[in-house]
């Protein structure tokens, strides 16, 4: 069968990689955030094209059902990536607050100068 889980996942990883690279090229995704995604899609591509790796890794980790390893990997990866994104959001929200404060203070100073 051409349409089995392997061919689909290979197709998916390739498409994913292309989409990520296109987003970076169109400036819709910053390089610094694209790296982890590119990394992820390459790993996905390797894993889906060579099922042997998953089977071996699953055996090492004493996982009875090899595809479970994929789920575990995906879950942990997304968890870590989410944490990373939250730190990014925190940093940005701090910066936005500071910008709003400085702008408000600048405007007050401008109004003051106008009066004089």
């Amino acid at each position, binding site marked *: 069968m051409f349409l089995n889980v392997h061919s689909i996942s290979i197709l998916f990883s390739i498409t994913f990689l292309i989409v990520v690279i296109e987003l970076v090229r169109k400036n819709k995704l910053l390089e610094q955030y694209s790296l982890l995604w590119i990394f992820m899609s390459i790993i996905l591509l390797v894993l889906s094209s060579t099922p042997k790796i998953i089977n071996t890794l699953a055996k090492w980790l004493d996982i009875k059902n090899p595809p479970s390893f994929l789920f575990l990997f995906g879950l942990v990866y997304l968890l870590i990536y989410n944490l990373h994104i939250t730190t990014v959001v925190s940093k940005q929200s701090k910066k936005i607050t500071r910008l709003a404060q400085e702008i408000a203070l600048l405007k007050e100073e401008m109004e*003051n100068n106008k009066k004089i």
Partner: protein
Amino acid sequence: MKILVIIPAYNEEESIASVINQIRFYAPEADILVINDGSVDATGEIAAKAGVKVVNLPFNLGIGGAMQTGYIYAKYHSYDIAVQVDADNQHDPFYINKLVQPIVDNSADMVIGSRYVGKTIYKSSVFRRVGMVFFTFLIKLLTDKWIMDTTSGFRAVNKGIINLFAMDYPVDYPEVDVLVRLYKKKFRVIELPVEMKARKTGKSSITPLRSIYYMIKVTLSLIIETIKY
């Protein structure tokens, strides 16, 4: 000594003018700064008409971000003392001089106007009091100091704390959070009794369920504050 009274205000058009007038009466030597925290009513216009300095934030930052704006202003204009007074008429400006005095004498770095030190006629709901007692014990546990009115926003700080707050001020529940922070940095915090008035305008946001939620969130944030670098 240059004194700045900072009034963080969010939709307080009914009370802001009277707060400003009372501060002018009781603390004529102080400069007044209203931080209009993205109000959708006429708070900013009324304050400007009253002739005080007004900083209009482009959007609502919440109490932490608004108060920090005031501290940044105080730092930029090199004020020696900053006093926080709420815009809802709860804090009686009569006590501003009393709160400022220990800082002028350099016997404290922060002075909190407290409802619960000494005898006051202030009455609050049961839920509020339970929360207050809880925070007092929690602060005692974390800092080994008794602060009876941990959430009071009626407070005066000196230059050292102005600079610290201008750099970094908690976003949520700053009043309680700051107590741990200042303890860790070895600042001297004292409480003085003040009378607080019941709110005349607007309504308190405290409901039983919300206050439990509030207590859990503040507790978590205090513990995090304690283990922070």
